[in-house]
């Protein structure tokens, strides 16, 4: 849903503080997910 809101904002091509914060949060979570997946992959291999 948050990603959908972000895409909606991008489609509108309007910028505002809350949208920026949302982008940052999504980016942080995505980064965390990537790290978590890498960790899980590592655990599985072991």
């Amino acid at each position, binding site marked *: *849903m948050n990603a959908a809101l972000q895409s*909606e904002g991008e489609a*509108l091509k*309007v910028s505002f503080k809350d949208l920026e914060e949302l982008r940052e949060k*999504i980016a942080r979570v995505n980064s965390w997910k990537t790290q978590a997946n890498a960790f899980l992959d590592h655990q599985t291999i072991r």
Partner: protein
Amino acid sequence: MPRLISQGHNGEDSAELREYLDLCDFVMREASQNLNGMLLRGSSQYQEKAMNILTQFNFDYDMAKFSILYPTVLLLPETRHRFLKAIKEDETLLSKIVREAVQDLQGSKQDEIDEVVSELRQALTHRLKPEELKMFQRKFEKMQVKIPDDVEQMLLDAEEFSKQVRKQINSNVQVENRLSLEQLEELQELAQAQCLETPELLKLDQQVVSARDWLAKVERSQGAEISLKDLDKLVRSGKQLPVKFGEPFEGLCERLNKALDLQQRIQETFKSNKTRGAVQVATDQDIGTNNAKAAVHANSNHNVY
């Protein structure tokens, strides 16, 4: 202007007397700044003085006129003596001098009037500024001459046109009753042909420039990223212009409404996320919850334009 002697006076003299008094009127009105009319000045009853002078010269109209036109000649003994001698030698001299003096005086006055009228007509071929019009009005007032009727009518027409413009450029008019930019430009073209530059016409020029500028900004904003603040500012400035922009304005309002709606939904999402802890923001569970909230929210109408 009332005459002292007009009724019951000898009909033979009345035309000459009228002409004499008219000259006195003219001298007092138009040419009393210099020595002309010196003998008539100093009293509002100058006609009475005029009659006294006429009596003093035993109803010799030319002598009376001469004394009014050239007072010093008869008042200074030396010049008086020379003058009296000259008119004695040539009987036609006095009437000739008086005739020419009157022609000069009244003729130059008419030349002055003609010149000012011509200047005004010339000035009216382009838009005359209010202060320039006031200057002309003062000139006419000083000459005690009425502005020609056709010019007066032109000025009245220009004022009427301005009144109509004022109604058209009022930004309080409902959007549907406003002029389109093309119509506003047509109005501006008509305004260019007006003879008077009124505040309304200046405002109209300014509004046309602002409307074109606004439209250019909207065109630039389309397909480009814009901050919500600037978008809001653009919509407000478009609303303040007395123009029916149609699609560009409506499209902009729609974009703003969508952006405001999105902003509110994001804020709602953040609010609900905060109660659960920031870490959960993007979990699948949250996505489901926020979806439901957002759907409820999207149904509520919070359009501001």
